[in-house]
């Protein structure tokens, strides 16, 4: 059979006969997968399409014709071969299925009424469909302690386990955290952690989702709902910018659970635990349900009406603009928003207020124009490029599912990872090479890699390179990695995958929430005429980025600061500057889900709707636009951000020109060049189920639509989900509610009513999309301070951020920061691991315990950002400095 398979590898398809029907299969594919695509479902427990088969459960036995006639074979482990004959419904097959199910049930506790899985349980479902009616087992069942906690988020009921090895394979193969495994043997086999080592994986929740029984339980969900009580819509996770597709499930108007949906180009069904459990924050009691206003009396923030809050905001903004000019207003933040929200706020800021002091990033990303101007790669392209250069943060911490994808690609050898990093990351062990650099020297290292005679140069010039580009450290200025990026941009055929973490940072940049850019990836200059036509007003000059805005606010040059979901006191790398900025700005308005540390300093706080509470679209790192759907209503009277922008515009005497999300979407399609052709109708097509990567060719999607509609691929794992979603609406069309994205009809109607659209039907040509020129003029790396170490500071998945801190299950998982240093540097100081040292930047000092990390180069020291601990890097970092020099001294 092996030889046969080899011969056919050259062919595109093989034909096999299943139950008398000829079906086409891909060479090398397993019988079970080929049959499923042809609509023949073979029952299974251990087989999972995203993991290697193990053939353990024996549920998928079918009869395969061999030289000695038909024989039972596991269809998950037998690859198809030309003219193979398979029978899935014969008596021997039925007897085998009956037998396996009876075996599986003899030791299963059958406690379905109190099991989370009851109602959506593959064991239950397949017993009904394929199993015997009753059991002949009268002996004592196997007993284990019920359930045991194997991590902070996952509980294990070993009595329910059917030993399919899905969880253990996931942990090992997919997540790279082989922290659970089988112990004992025979019918005493059980999944367990290693002694004193919990299953602390960022991806542990996936094991709960793929468990075919209720053996693995997510503690945030346990006993909270019965599956048949849940309603759901498909949506996109917004915990980071990877854009994993999820099923958002609710009960009684509360978010109850997120499940990963298998989106082939993006998440393969996986979610990180932060994303999976982030709904807890949406459902948190601390959510703002009404606007707040600082009263003139006691100076405290108190609830007020929307009228009061919006009137006050509009009045203050108008006064400040009148007195100090439009450039005295700044809008900071916006990465939390949907594309539609972001467009509305960009239009309000740039087209109504007239300021270009707008930045959706908080000094922790990369210049917006650079990111928008680089040629973009998809995740799939990164996973198949001959070389991937990682020049950015630790993607395991910041973009966890991207880490899963690239880890798989590195292990399977579909790509080779070259990491350029100031400190070891989660990818280091999978990288073909990891080059460490000292803060401030990224560009220099990149240049020498390209020019050097070290083999790396040839790889980089191969023409098939994807750079995963982000901010490797918050303790060095973004200028160094930006320069490195522009050097890399000179490589032939190079593409970039931005590794910026905030949920819709790419969409917000697309929509113009950055200085110097306008919606649709065009520059302020190039888009001037086009947008004057569309919006009638534009900022007079290029504005400031987040660091510039906060510096100007600190110096009193910016009087009004709009915090659009931004919490600079927590997120800006330089906390002292953020403090001075909030104190210096005369008027601060915060639009947020929570009363964050920064929002507490605001004069007005506008309560915004959060994930799952509003519809729209979001854009991931690839530029892939997907639909986010509303499932629950926002608390109190909290509103979607675009409505707040529209309301403020009205109070400023202007009209943003849209009164529905549909009209807003239409305007984006018409005005933003990168979004040309992207209609709701196209996004609703089956072929666009995984979203649309912008910019795109509408005709290509149309052509593809027929084909995809003919054979919709349903993720196996989501069968239960799909069944439920028939009532909830598998996609946007059937969603109703005030904030739902409407289908096409409404949009046309809105367009007719629209004011600006009527006036000028586009005399100017559409402006070109931004591009970045390769850099040829190197700058000088900062000089070494021989007495200091250079600080590296990066984020952890679980940190002090608003989402994590408002998830009851995740908040306590944020690790304490300790200073990490190379052992040579420690020896030089005469300090041991675990000792306390005094660290000082020119801002402040702190004492903190130190750990050895020989992955760090000598001369560097590392602290995690925004995590609990004795030293806060945000207090040490000066955003105006190119790097953060850190003196480390003994405390004795």
């Amino acid at each position, binding site marked *: 059979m092996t030889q046969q398979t080899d011969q056919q590898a050259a062919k595109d398809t093989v034909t096999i006969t299943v139950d008398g029907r000829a079906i086409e299969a891909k060479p090398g594919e397993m019988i079970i997968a080929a049959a499923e695509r042809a609509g023949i479902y073979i029952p299974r427990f251990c087989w999972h399409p995203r993991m290697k088969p193990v053939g*353990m*459960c*024996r549920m998928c036995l079918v009869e395969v014709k061999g030289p000695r006639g038909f024989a039972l074979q596991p269809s998950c482990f037998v690859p198809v071969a030309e003219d193979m004959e398979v029978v899935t419904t014969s008596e021997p097959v039925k007897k085998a299925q009956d037998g*396996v199910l009876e075996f599986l049930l003899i030791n299963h506790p059958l406690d379905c009424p109190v099991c989370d899985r009851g109602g959506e349980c593959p064991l239950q479902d397949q017993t009904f469909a394929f199993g015997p009616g009753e059991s002949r087992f009268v002996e004592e069942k196997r007993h284990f302690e019920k359930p045991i906690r194997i991590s902070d988020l996952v509980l294990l009921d070993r009595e329910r386990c059917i030993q399919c090895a899905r969880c253990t394979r996931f942990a090992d193969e997919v997540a790279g955290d082989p922290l659970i495994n089988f112990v004992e043997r025979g*019918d005493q086999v059980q999944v367990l952690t290693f002694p004193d080592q919990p299953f602390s994986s960022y991806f542990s929740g996936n094991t709960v989702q793929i468990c075919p029984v209720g053996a693995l339980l997510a503690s945030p969900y346990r006993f909270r709902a019965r599956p048949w009580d849940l309603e759901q819509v498909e949506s996109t996770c917004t915990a980071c910018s990877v854009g994993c597709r999820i099923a958002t499930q609710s009960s009684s108007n509360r978010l109850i659970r997120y499940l990963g949906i298998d989106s082939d180009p993006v998440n393969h069904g996986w979610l990180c635990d932060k994303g999976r459990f982030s709904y807890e924050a949406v459902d948190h009691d601390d959510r703002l349900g009404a606007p707040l206003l600082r009263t003139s009396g006691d100076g405290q923030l108190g609830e007020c009406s929307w009228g009061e809050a919006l009137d006050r905001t509009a009045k203050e903004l108008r006064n400040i603009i009148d007195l100090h000019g439009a450039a005295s207003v700044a809008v900071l933040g916006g990465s939390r928003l949907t594309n539609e929200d972001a467009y509305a706020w960009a239009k309000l800021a740039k087209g109504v207020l007239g300021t270009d002091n707008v930045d959706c990033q908080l000094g922790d990303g990369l210049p917006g124009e650079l990111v928008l101007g680089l040629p973009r790669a998809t995740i799939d392209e990164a996973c198949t490029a001959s070389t991937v250069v990682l020049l950015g943060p630790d993607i395991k911490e910041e973009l966890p599912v991207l880490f899963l994808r690239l880890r798989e690609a590195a292990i399977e050898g579909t790509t080779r990872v070259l990491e350029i990093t100031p400190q070891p990351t989660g990818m280091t062990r999978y990288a073909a090479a990891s080059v460490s650099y000292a803060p401030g020297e990224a560009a220099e290292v990149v240049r020498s890699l390209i020019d050097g005679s070290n083999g790396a140069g040839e790889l980089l010039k191969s023409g098939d390179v994807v750079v995963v580009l982000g901010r490797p450290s918050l303790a060095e200025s973004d200028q160094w990695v930006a320069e490195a990026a522009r050097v890399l941009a000179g490589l032939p055929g190079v593409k970039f995958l931005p590794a910026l973490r905030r949920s819709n940072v790419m969409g917000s940049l697309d929509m113009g929430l950055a200085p110097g850019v306008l919606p649709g990836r065009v520059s302020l200059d190039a888009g001037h005429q086009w947008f004057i036509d569309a919006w009638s007003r534009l900022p007079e000059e290029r504005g400031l980025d987040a660091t510039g805005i906060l510096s100007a606010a600190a110096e009193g040059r910016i009087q009004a600061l709009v915090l659009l979901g931004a919490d600079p006191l927590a997120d800006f790398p330089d906390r002292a500057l953020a403090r001075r900025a909030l104190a210096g700005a005369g008027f601060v308005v915060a639009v947020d889900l929570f009363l964050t540390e920064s929002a507490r300093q605001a004069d007005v706080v506008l309560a915004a709707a959060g994930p799952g509470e509003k519809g729209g679209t979001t854009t991931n790192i690839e530029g892939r636009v997907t639909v986010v759907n509303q499932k629950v209503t926002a608390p109190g009277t909290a509103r979607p951000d675009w409505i707040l922008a529209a309301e403020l515009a009205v109070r400023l005497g202007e009209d943003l020109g849209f009164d529905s999300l549909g009209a807003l979407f239409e305007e984006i399609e018409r005005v933003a060049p990168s979004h040309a052709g992207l209609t709701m109708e196209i996004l609703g097509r089956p072929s666009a189920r995984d979203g649309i990567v912008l910019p795109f060719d509408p005709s290509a999607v149309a052509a593809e639509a027929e084909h995809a509609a003919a054979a919709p691929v349903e993720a196996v794992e989501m069968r239960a989900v799909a069944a439920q979603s028939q009532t909830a609406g598998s996609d946007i069309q059937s969603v109703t509610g005030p904030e739902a994205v409407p289908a096409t009809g409404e949009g046309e109607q809105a367009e007719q009513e629209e004011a600006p659209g009527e006036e000028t039907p586009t005399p100017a040509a559409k402006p070109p999309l931004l591009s970045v020129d390769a850099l040829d003029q190197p700058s000088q790396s900062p000089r070494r301070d021989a007495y200091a170490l250079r600080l590296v500071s990066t984020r952890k998945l679980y940190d002090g951020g608003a989402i994590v801190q408002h998830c009851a299950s995740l908040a306590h998982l944020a690790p304490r920061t300790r200073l990490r240093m190379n052992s040579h540097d420690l020896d030089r100081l005469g300090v041991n691991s675990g000792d306390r040292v005094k660290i000082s930047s020119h801002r402040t000092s702190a004492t903190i315990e130190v750990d050895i990390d020989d992955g760090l180069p000598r001369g560097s020291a590392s602290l995690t950002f925004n995590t609990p601990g004795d030293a806060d890097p945000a207090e040490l970092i000066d955003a105006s400095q190119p790097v953060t020099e850190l003196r480390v001294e003994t405390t004795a």
Partner: protein
Amino acid sequence: MAVELPKPIVTARYGLQESWKLQTYLNNGGYEGLRKALGTPREELVENVTAATLLGRGGAGFPAGQKWSMLRKAEPVYLVVNGDESEPATFKDHQLMVTDPHQIVEGALICAYAVGAAQAFIFVRGEFALGLERMTQAVNEAYEHGAIGRNIFGSGWSIDLVIHPGAGAYICGEETALLESLEGKRGFPRIKPPYFPAAIGLYGAPTVVNNVETVSNLPWITLNGGSAFAAMGAGRSTGTRIFSLSGRVNRPGNYEVEMAKTTFHDLFYDPRLGNGIIDDKALKAFIPGGASAPWFGPDKVDMPLDQDEVGKAGSMLGSGSVIAMDETTCMVRAAWRITRFFHNESCGQCTPCREGSGWVDKIMYRIEQGAGREDDLDLLLDVCDNIAPGLSWPPRQTTICVLGPSIPSSIVSAIRMFRDEFLVHIKDGQCPFPP
């Protein structure tokens, strides 16, 4: 007429003083086979073993020469010697390890040289304290003697040989589970295909896995020629073989006899061998090839110890363990003991074996304890049928390895041959035999 006992091949040095020492081995022709092999073209060595029709002595009885010839053409090649002898009543390999460890080392080296192995491993059952000690000592002596290591006997050929103690699982005697264990993983048999380690074995490399007794034959075959070996026995059952005789016989023990020329009757009754059933009781049944083998009744006692003949009769010579049961043996209890063994040793991968072994163990125990029901017998047969559909021989395998289909052998044999005895247990509510 008494059977002619052959001049022993693998047990030739049994009974010598300190037979496990290098000096004893050298004084009795030790390492001569290796020296000869090192001067012989590799193809010739393989052909020699093929000509000998040396059937594997571990249980499956696959011809060693054929196994070597199936190696995938790739580098490196590994040799693994399987000394994880764990089946109840099989005890020949341990004695070989304890008594003549150098013969195993020499055989392993000849095999390694013949197949061009880069490294050789001897996987020894972890519970064999003395076997491990003797094997380790032998390997150390052989290194000092220049038989292992760099430039062996000046031939220019080099190899290392490692003794690897098992971690206490019967299943690691299954060659793919053994390889997993050797790789440091959990001892789960690998799913087939690939069917043979010769294609994908240790660390993914082509690997020869041979039993301790199999390689012990190699020095002799190398010195005396494959045809001399093949001249003994008949058909494919050539040469001599050690049988571990146990159960209700007067002289249990390991006996090297000529294959196909010796019968079970000889084994049980020859004064130099089993010397008859204890107290001259009547033979009630016997297991011809270890715990996995279907049982034979006294009608088969004159059958020769011929792999193919026993196979045709519906059982196997398996691991060479022959167990005699007489009229004092409770067949329910005997079958239950074997069932309990498989229950304890199932690795737990495949559902039918993992769950089925425990279930039939519980039923068998219940019947033996007097709490059985008549329909338990049909239930047992049907559960066994769900483990190995058809209950035929050779069994139809629907599990990853052959442990699953081994479970029904004793149960089905006992029920088919001694149904009445089961019914007595059930009707009387107790076991009619003394405890």
